[in-house]
């Protein structure tokens, strides 16, 4: 099973002159080496600028990122006494601390566990326990969640970082004062059974050792594990995709191969997508870091008005986003009247880009959005549209260099040309499997092929189109939501007898979660309301997982053995939305 399924590479002609057909030989052995090399080559250039909504900002040069991440690596290895391969979780919005911590973890030879800062206590608990996290770096505005989480995990040390961390002194003071006095978003630090260190203190401690961080990373090889990137699980729990240094480095090269002709050192990329999401992590952070570009980090991109100062004050040349972001920007007068004039490229991923949004974006900015496709299991980029006029609307583009794809039917046999089949991916960017879940690994990763669960078709010239999804997951603004997890959460609510969750098309987020709920007849008290259900879900689930739509029913469609038939509900949804918005049922 196998190479026979690769029927040549029809997309090669679409590579044109600017995309190398063959992936270049790997340049580095590890992400630590890649980072250190970029820092050395571009030492005096600005690497990151973090911009808060009122325009206050702080920046770090490549040289500063290098020395600060060295110090953080020393802190991890010496002060925290971590061993190579130990897991360090980072739970930060886009701030200057993020690249320092991520690169510090790689330089320490440890494994990075990106974590959504909006996760609830139970989601944090699961992820930290599953990954056996030893050190957690968390943003101080969410420190109040720690008291319930840390004592139940193996976390030995907590590091706190603020949003305005490493800003010049006056703006840092002002932003912190506003957080403390005005928005009241700085909770007191709870009493914890483990030491809590602020990141500045951690760096100071690390620096004192005057250790050469190279000792910890020079032995790293491409096969070594770099990150555990959690993704929703079909069994209701999130599981960690094991991404090696080699997979990440390969994907960086693949991203660069597709966009290199449109990037130079003057590139300034707007990072409004969260870095804990694999798309922004690989595309925005690592790929642009590798070429010495400047990254404008937005800690809080909603409402989209928060981006105004960043767009006005910096010469943005690249924007990465999801449908939601492009949609919101094209609704803002300040953006449409004066779109960024240096803009060279805009790329979209994570979720289907709506044709109307793409068209409007092109009209407003004069730059088309190139849509791509990826998944956590592939670090994440699998395919992308070539930049410029070879971009094909509605298509997820062509496989990136070094990637094989195949379309197969339910019997694992290749489909006929032009017919839909499950998309399989094989390439150097593939994960090594799910962390400590051999069964899940076996069902997703077979003979080197990642079974994506997405059903696609391929044009004669290799452009791919996603037409359906095999797995039941719902993708909300690029985030995977597995119905089981939501159904479990609903089942914990006493007034609920049973529930089923499916996705519904949503102009804004691509898809949204809909819950079909049957009230529990034995429950006494207030009748079940949509509000009560949503409120309950908010206590257990991150906001994007909370059902947007709730339908209360007397019963759910079931199979003869009593299994709830999600496919029947999906058919209902298709019927319901067919008349309304035919284009959005992606």
């Amino acid at each position, binding site marked *: 099973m196998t190479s026979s399924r690769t029927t040549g590479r029809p997309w090669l002609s679409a590579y044109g002159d600017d995309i190398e057909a063959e992936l270049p030989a790997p340049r580095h052995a590890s992400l630590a080496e890649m980072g250190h090399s970029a820092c050395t080559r571009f030492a005096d250039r600005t690497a990151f600028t973090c*911009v808060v909504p009122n325009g206050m900002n702080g920046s770090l040069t490549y040289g500063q990122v290098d020395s600060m991440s060295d110090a953080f690596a020393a802190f991890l290895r010496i002060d925290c006494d971590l061993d190579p391969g130990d897991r360090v979780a980072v739970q930060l919005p886009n701030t200057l601390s993020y690249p320092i911590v991520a690169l510090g973890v790689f330089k320490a030879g440890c494994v990075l566990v990106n974590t959504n800062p909006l996760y609830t206590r139970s989601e944090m608990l699961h992820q930290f326990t599953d990954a056996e996290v030893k050190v957690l770096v968390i943003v101080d505005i969410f420190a109040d969640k720690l008291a319930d989480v840390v004592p139940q995990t193996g976390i030995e040390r907590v590091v706190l970082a603020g949003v305005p961390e490493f800003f010049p002194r006056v703006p840092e003071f002002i932003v912190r004062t506003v957080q403390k006095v005005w928005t009241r978003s700085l909770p007191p630090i709870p009493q914890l059974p483990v030491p809590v260190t602020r990141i500045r203190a951690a760096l100071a401690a690390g620096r004192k050792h005057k250790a050469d961080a190279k000792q910890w990373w020079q032995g790293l090889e491409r096969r070594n594990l770099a990150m555990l990137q959690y993704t929703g699980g079909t069994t209701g729990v999130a599981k960690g995709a094991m991404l090696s240094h080699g997979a990440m480095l390969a994907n960086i090269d693949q991203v660069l191969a597709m966009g290199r002709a449109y990037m130079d050192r003057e590139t300034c990329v707007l990072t409004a997508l969260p870095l804990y999401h694999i798309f922004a992590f690989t595309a925005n952070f690592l790929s642009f870091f590798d070429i010495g570009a400047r990254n404008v980090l937005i800690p809080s991109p909603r409402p989209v008005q928060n981006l105004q100062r960043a767009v*006005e004050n910096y010469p943005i040349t690249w924007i990465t986003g999801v449908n939601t972001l492009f949609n*919101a920007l094209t*609704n803002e007068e300040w953006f449409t009247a004066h779109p960024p004039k240096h803009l060279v490229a805009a790329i979209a991923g994570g979720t289907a880009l709506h044709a109307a949004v793409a068209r409007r974006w092109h009209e407003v900015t004069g730059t088309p959005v190139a849509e791509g496709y990826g998944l956590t299991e592939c670090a994440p980029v699998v395919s992308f549209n070539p930049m410029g006029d070879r971009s094909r609307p509605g298509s997820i583009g062509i496989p990136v260099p070094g990637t094989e794809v195949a379309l197969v039917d339910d019997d694992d046999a290749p489909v006929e040309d032009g017919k839909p089949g499950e998309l399989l991916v094989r390439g150097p960017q593939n994960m090594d499997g799910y962390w400590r879940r051999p069964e899940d690994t076996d069902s997703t990763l077979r003979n080197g092929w990642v079974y994506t669960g997405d059903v696609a078709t391929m044009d004669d010239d290799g452009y791919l189109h996603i037409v359906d999804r095999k797995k039941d997951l719902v993708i909300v603004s690029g985030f995977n939501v597995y119905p089981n997890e939501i159904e479990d959460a609903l089942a914990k609510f006493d007034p609920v007898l049973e529930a089923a969750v499916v996705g519904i098309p949503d102009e804004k987020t691509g898809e949204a979660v809909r819950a079909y709920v049957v009230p529990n007849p034995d429950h006494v008290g207030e009748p079940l309301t949509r509000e009560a259900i949503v409120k309950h879900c908010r206590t257990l689930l991150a906001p994007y997982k909370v059902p947007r739509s709730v339908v209360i029913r007397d019963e759910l469609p079931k199979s003869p053995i009593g299994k709830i038939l999600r496919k029947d509900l999906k058919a209902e949804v298709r019927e319901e939305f067919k008349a309304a918005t035919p284009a959005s049922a992606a």
Partner: protein
Amino acid sequence: MITPLETTLLGIMMMVIMLGMGASMTWRDFMLAFRKPRGIVVGLTSQFLVMPALGFALAMALGLPPAMVVGLILIACMPGGTTSNIFAYFSKGVLALSIMMTTASTMVAVVMVPILLTFYSGLAGIGAEFVIPAGNVAQVLVVLLVPTAIGMVLRKVNPNIGATVELIGSLMGVVVILFLIVTWVPRNYQMLLDTGPEFYTATIGIGLAGMLFGYWFARGLQQDSNRSRTISLETGIQNGPLAVLVITLSFTGEMQQDVLFIPVLYSLFIVISSTFVTMWYRRNATREELARDAAKVAT
């Protein structure tokens, strides 16, 4: 009623505020206002058409004595005050539009105000000669535009300094508003007690009616809600100090004191009523912001 020291102090504070307002803007904001010049035209029309007519109508309806009629018509004919810019800022309005309207209306005032005053006072059967001091008009423009320009440059040069100046300016705005309310009410409470309800109706009413009509006038001429709110504030908030100045230059003795009464009372109450209107506008603006964020692209 205001000591010269307070006037100077207020002038300086006003400049700090405008520095902050300027730091919140870019040239693009002005370009945006120019791209839709209709907004300025609608605003000016509202300012010089709606407002004086309202003033006249209100004066007639309330049957005020002649000196008060002059005072009310005078305040209604004044160009936009600089405080309107602070309120536009706090209400998340279109600040560039507000500043351009204040600038334009102040310049136009040199010609328009004498014409309007002569017309409406004639209509009310009162003959009077009015002097509009061009020098003071220029002074208003300098206080308004120079700090704004400096603020904009500061932001361009260093966004951190710009944001800090903006913050200081807006804090100063709150201080000035509180200062006006806190110092005026206790010192003038006797006058406030002696004043009849028709004078309250006239002074508070002219501001609120200006805002109400300004809003719907702009809406009717297809301005979006944010611009309309800005035009509304600009229409309702008049340059009270300039009115006081015009009166001291145009009248003497007892007549001067009587004519001054309405503009002074207006200047006090407009700060209070604008504060409430601004809070309400700001809430609407925030709600619209969030709704826009969630809106669909029009196909």
